[in-house]
């Protein structure tokens, strides 16, 4: 399978890339890791006229823990975050997720920015970013703006990134208090997209009361979904069995899965409930460790 013809540019600076995007307009497509885009182009689901490759632009791939913020450049590869022991100390959730995202070769290329910008509810990083309350920096010729993760996903394959803009950076607050986070998805085999996936982050105060909770769901809605009622069911509690049951029940009710090859709607709701319970328990264990 060979993509339809297109023109290709690989600018060396962000400025140059933004100018190109503006010149070419809506026939341009950004190429990051290419591991969502190129398969779609091979199948001719996407036929952009011009690819603007970001891979030659320096400075877009940093991964750093800086006091109260984790910064991930949009062009950081899945493997860069997966391999960072510094990130794993506070955010083991990234190792949980990486292991379940595709396979090592794909993670060598796929970028965190691309995983979000693709706007696919089946991708795993969106749910993780919802749980961690990420902020996304989007840059255009007029400068950069920051969009909260809750305002980022619009609809099927649609995000807050406008024509001519580039997602440049992801920032994640390091909460104060006891923090625990975890991700799991059910997959039929290695490399499969999620039947359903759940990301959880809990922040506890000194005596174990939950002061904030983030829960994101993968592939059970048209867009990545925040399980708001589940979060509310945990905040203010000691995250006891009753609270966990209530949160998991709410997640299974509030998601909107469709019946497909990966299972029926009813089955997926049950999967969401089970994984939500397990991930809250795991996040709790990590917060108390």
């Amino acid at each position, binding site marked *: *399978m*060979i*993509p*339809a*013809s*297109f*023109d*290709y540019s*690989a600018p060396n600076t962000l400025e140059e890339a933004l100018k190109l995007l503006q010149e070419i307009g809506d026939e341009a497509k950004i*190429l990051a890791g*290419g*591991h969502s885009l*190129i*398969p779609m*182009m*091979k199948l001719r689901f996407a036929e952009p006229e011009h*690819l603007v*490759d970001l*891979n030659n632009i320096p400075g877009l791939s940093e991964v750093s823990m800086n006091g109260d913020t984790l910064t991930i450049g949009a062009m950081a590869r899945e493997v860069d975050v997966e391999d960072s022991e510094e990130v794993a100390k506070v955010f083991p959730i990234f190792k949980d997720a990486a*292991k379940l995202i*595709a*396979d*090592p*070769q*794909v993670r*060598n*290329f796929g970028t965190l920015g691309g995983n979000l910008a693709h706007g696919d509810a089946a991708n795993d990083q969106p749910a993780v970013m919802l749980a961690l309350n990420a902020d996304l920096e989007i840059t255009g010729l007029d400068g950069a703006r920051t969009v909260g993760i809750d305002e980022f996903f619009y609809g099927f394959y649609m995000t807050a990134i406008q024509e001519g803009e580039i997602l440049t950076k992801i920032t994640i607050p390091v909460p104060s208090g006891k923090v625990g986070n975890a991700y799991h998805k059910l997959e039929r085999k*290695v*490399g499969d997209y999620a039947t359903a996936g759940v990301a959880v982050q809990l922040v506890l105060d000194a005596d174990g009361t939950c002061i904030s909770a983030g829960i994101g769901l993968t592939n059970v809605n048209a867009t990545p979904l925040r399980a708001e009622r589940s979060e509310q069911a945990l905040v203010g509690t000691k995250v006891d069995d009753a609270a966990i049951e209530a949160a998991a029940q709410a997640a299974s009710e509030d998601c909107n899965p469709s019946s497909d090859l990966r299972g029926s709607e009813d089955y997926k709701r049950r999967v969401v409930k089970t994984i939500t319970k397990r991930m809250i328990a795991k996040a709790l264990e990590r917060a108390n460790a």
Partner: protein
Amino acid sequence: MKKEITLKINGEEVTAEVEPRTLLVHFIREQVSMTGTHIGCDTSSCGACTILINGKSAKSCTILAVQANGKEITTVEGLATADGPHPLQEGFKLAHGLHCGFCTPGMMLRAVELLDKNPDPTEEEIRWGISGNLCRCTGYNNIVKAVQYASAKMRGAELPNTDPVFVE
């Protein structure tokens, strides 16, 4: 419009004109005429097309040839040296890590990076490490043994039993 690219393949510099839509695997097989890199699924799933780009394993059916401009590529043709086969090639031979051999080049290139990052992997790490490479023949056990052999040989450790029918 064609683009000129210059890259190193197995240490040799190659300059060529390619259409932007040319996939790296097609470039390697058809323009450079190295057919050791296979195309299995053509949908980014099987790993038969795995090569190394600047030392990182990559599915060459999911990468454009133009993206390899300025890069160093290693294919199965570049594994052996004048001194003989690569320890992984030896391991695959001794442990019967292949039957039809279709998956083998990709499997070995993936294992090169795996051992580079983790010279002494556990069996579980090897199995996760090659999870992007499918084999329809061997059932994987002897592939794991082949990688364990190469790991031991490259570390100078005691060589494990590579008998293809040996089960611990």
